[in-house]
């Protein structure tokens, strides 16, 4: 074709017209869905997918839920919302919902009726009772808060079992520690919005800390009002990247740095006057915490932070008008080492910011569930419940330790509500084996998660968008509140409130005369519990909780010797065999909880975190060179607990001799969008129980990388 021909082709509209027609023809695929139009409506509720309790607004087209946005006028999130909250429609309509009660028969699940499911549970319970083993009933719950948790605990008490084991949150650990330390139990409320100098000891402020959106908004506010954030962390996290200053610190030594700063501040005149203003009991304890803290020079050796820098941090902190030190939280607001918690509390105290604007506010939890106590004669059979086998502040890790140690499981029936221990507890392979030893595992999960798959019986709850749920939100707020989630979608499947399943089981066990459970339905129970606040809650979605004053006296004595040694959060493993340290990384684009990560969120995950099915880990280029590895290499990541195949990504922001791995991947459940993608970081960890709280605080484990 000559020049003329091509010019002609370009100028004549014919080929383009033909192409246009072809494209219209080829695109009329009948299987491309055409979403039906309809009447638009808007429904407010609160999000209960994490402890944050954000306000949400659901958009519906007729009955269909098409969007979940942040509620614009909500005091916590003011329209902002996280990727998980935005995934509402996917979490509602996913085929990964448990759509009816299920029973495992010969290793495979079969749908059964609610009647059959509940009578199966009842007959097993009756058997336990006949054997005089009421303590053989145990329950793992996602939290100890709210009416569902209270009903489960009440059910166990009425049955005669003490073994109600809610996953402790850092708030529970705070209550325990502050109760011992100051004689009055409180939770810190951080006045983020008014602070001007913020020392964050490794807090994932932008990756989910406290009430996540509220925290992010506060961080954003600091950019506007000139407040300075100093992030102390072993790696360049997303928080560190947006902070005004990032100070790299040796893994697991944040408490030492906090104590060194404490000591330095306590020696200043200002520090002295702050300390003398504190109530006597607390003051005494405070001095006992600070005293064994390291000197500047010792701290430099331990933390790797220059002594001069520490001195400067101390000067800036005590010299500022509104200093505030923030304590880390574990995944999903789980507790961290008590040593670290107390060090940060002490630092706030010596800075004189307790109960001050921009400071740390002491918040007392207010019980709002005031049901009559269960009476001894309400307890069936063989007597009043004794001691919880998972410890005084029950810990699921301690529970599974006991299960593992006994040749036969001391627990015959395990109820699992709103948590996924087979995935997210440290050493998760061991947890799976432990669960396997329990004769009857009953899950209330609305999703096919790892623990639901390991159960024998599933009594599925409604999804969080189909149900009422009372939801107290403390999460580091200075104004804690009680939220109520309200159904924004009609019920899609043959599911029931966990509360109703418990009430029905109680009825079948003890007849209508079961005095401990006077309610016909869970909704009736909820309404009665919230009594005159029900209307407010139903209308607005939240109320402020009262803030009773704190009085501190009669402080007991904590045995400080137990936490004078650093490095307790790292589980065993010899340095020469395991020269590296694993650090975990959280992200708002991945979810670690029992709900899983949505397909949209998976789509937003970077290819430096997940590549194909391969989990990617960050390694410092220097370390990689030492190991003779480079970008994209596959390697075996080996810890004393387990090993996994990983892909290497070189990252300057990662400390030499550490390996950074993401949380929230490596599922063995949840269908093809999640199953088998990446590595489950909890598999590699080993539980380390805190000497004061009894909670698992492991966040690092020694490891080595080997070429494949």
């Amino acid at each position: 074709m000559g020049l003329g021909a091509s010019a002609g082709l370009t100028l004549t509209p014919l080929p383009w017209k033909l192409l246009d027609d072809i494209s219209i023809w080829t695109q009329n695929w009948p299987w491309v869905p055409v979403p039906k139009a309809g009447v638009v409506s808007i429904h407010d509720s609160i999000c209960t997918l994490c402890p944050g309790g954000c306000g949400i607004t659901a958009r519906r087209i007729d009955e269909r839920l098409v969007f979940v946005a942040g509620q614009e006028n909500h005091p916590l999130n003011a329209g902002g919302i996280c990727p998980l909250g935005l995934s509402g429609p996917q979490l509602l309509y996913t085929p990964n919902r448990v759509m009816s009660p299920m029973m495992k028969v010969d290793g495979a699940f079969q749908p059964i009726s609610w009647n059959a499911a509940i009578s199966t549970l009842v007959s097993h319970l009756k058997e336990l009772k006949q054997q005089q083993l009421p303590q053989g009933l145990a329950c793992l719950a996602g939290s100890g808060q709210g009416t569902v948790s209270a009903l489960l605990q009440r059910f166990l008490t009425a049955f005669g079992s003490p073994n109600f084991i809610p996953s402790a949150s850092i708030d529970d650990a705070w209550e325990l520690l502050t109760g011992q330390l100051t004689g009055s139990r409180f939770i810190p409320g951080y006045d983020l919005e008014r602070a001007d100098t913020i020392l964050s000891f490794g807090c994932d402020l932008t990756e989910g800390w406290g009430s996540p959106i509220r925290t992010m908004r506060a961080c954003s506010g600091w950019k506007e009002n000139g407040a300075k954030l100093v992030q102390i962390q072993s790696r360049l996290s997303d928080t560190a990247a947006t902070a005004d200053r990032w100070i790299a610190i040796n893994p697991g030594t944040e408490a030492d740095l906090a104590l060194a700063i404490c000591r330095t501040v306590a020696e200043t005149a200002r520090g002295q006057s702050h300390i003398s203003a504190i109530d006597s009991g607390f003051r005494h304890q405070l001095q006992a915490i600070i005293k064994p803290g390291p000197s500047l020079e010792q701290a430099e050796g331990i933390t790797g932070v220059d002594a001069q820098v520490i001195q400067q941090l101390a000067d800036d902190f005590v010299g500022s008008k509104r200093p505030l030190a923030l304590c880390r939280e574990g995944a999903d607001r789980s507790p961290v080492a008590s040593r670290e918690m107390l060090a940060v509390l002490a630092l706030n105290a010596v800075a004189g910011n307790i109960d001050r604007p921009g400071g740390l506010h002491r918040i007392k939890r207010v019980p709002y569930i005031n049901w009559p106590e269960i009476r001894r004669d309400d307890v069936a059979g063989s007597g009043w419940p004794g001691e919880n086998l998972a410890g005084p502040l029950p810990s699921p890790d301690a529970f599974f330790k006991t299960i593992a140690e006994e040749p036969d499981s001391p627990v015959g029936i395990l109820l699992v509500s709103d948590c996924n221990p087979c995935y997210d507890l440290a050493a998760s392979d061991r947890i799976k084996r432990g669960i396997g030893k329990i004769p009857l595992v009953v899950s209330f999960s609305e999703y096919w998660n790892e623990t639901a798959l390991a159960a024998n019986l599933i009594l599925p709850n409604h999804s969080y968008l189909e149900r009422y749920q009372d939801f107290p939100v403390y999460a580091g707020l200075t104004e804690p509140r009680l939220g109520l989630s309200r159904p924004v979608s009609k019920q899609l499947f043959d599911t029931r409130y966990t509360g109703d399943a418990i009430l029905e089981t109680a009825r079948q066990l003890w007849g209508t005369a079961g005095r401990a459970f006077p309610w016909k339905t869970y909704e009736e129970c909820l309404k009665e519990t919230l009594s005159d606040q029900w209307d407010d809650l139903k209308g607005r979605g939240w109320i402020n909780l009262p803030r009773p004053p704190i009085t501190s006296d009669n402080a007991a004595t904590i045995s400080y010797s137990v936490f004078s040694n650093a490095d307790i959060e790292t589980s065993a493993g010899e340095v020469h065999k395991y020269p590296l340290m694993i650090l975990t990384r959280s992200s708002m684009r991945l979810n670690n909880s029992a709900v899983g990560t949505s397909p949209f969120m998976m789509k937003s995950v970077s290819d430096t975190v997940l590549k194909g099915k391969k989990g990617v880990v960050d390694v410092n280029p220097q370390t990689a060179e030492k190991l003779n590895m480079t970008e994209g290499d596959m390697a075996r990541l080996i810890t004393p607990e387990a090993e996994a195949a990983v892909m290497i990504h070189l990252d300057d922001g990662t400390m030499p001799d550490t390996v950074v791995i993401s949380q929230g991947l490596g599922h063995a459940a949840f269908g093809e969008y999640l199953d088998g993608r990446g590595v489950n970081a909890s598999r590699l960890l080993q539980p380390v129980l805190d000497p004061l709280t009894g909670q698992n605080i492991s966040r690092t484990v020694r490891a080595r990388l080997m070429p494949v």
Partner: protein
Amino acid sequence: MISGTKAMKTKTKQTYHFGMLIDLDRCNGCGSCMVACMSENNISFRPDETDKQTSITWMRMYRISNRKPFPDTERCFLPMPCMHCEGKESGHSPCVSVCPVTATDYDRNTGIVSQIPSRCFGCRYCMVACPYHARSFNWWDPVWPKGMEQMLNPDVSVRMRGVVEKCSFCYHRYQSARDKAHLQGRPRIEESDYQTSCTEACPTGAITFGDLNNPQHRITQMVNPDRNLSGKPRNPQVFRLLEKLGTNPSVYYHSSKQWVREVSDNHIDDKGRS
């Protein structure tokens, strides 16, 4: 071929020029903007989305670094929607000028570069022409797992295999804002009438969206665009990506860090991916 250059002269009434300002000091990479966009705009999803060359997204997240070794490393997230380039002369956007079937066009009433899937026949010239990798191609039929098609938004048509798609500044929201204003007898739409899905969702308020022709709108005040220089920002901390190409984007960025501003005017190399 396409009447790109006449328009400026025939522009009679004051039109909108919608634009976006993303504050990189505030952005923390949470990803809400990406997911809010996917949910609003019926973006399809597949079990493996880790090949970012074929993964469809209208809001792409990059992560850039100052390339210094530990512990002097600094990093910054860079969310990138379509830049809605105006081109040197109004309407001469790189992608618009190569589309043989006018499936993508620069709308002089809004400054929005449209994309009409039913017109696109998949030649992908626009993808080659776009210097910002803002466009994605549908290599496969979109498939929603059983039951999940219920979540589809009727305001946005679902794309099919063989077409290109990209950010539309939630154009359907503009349309409904316009309808609403019309019904209420208002001649113009207000700033709050029309906001994109990502802007609303962003927890840190990092995204500001509005009309660059309206001096009252926050974006105009923050950017302070210079009309004589095709909207080049007068605010020294505000910049556009690859300003030197003269694509004249409607998306602006703010950063107080000089290295961020420098990197962004050069190129994002593949090591700097998010």
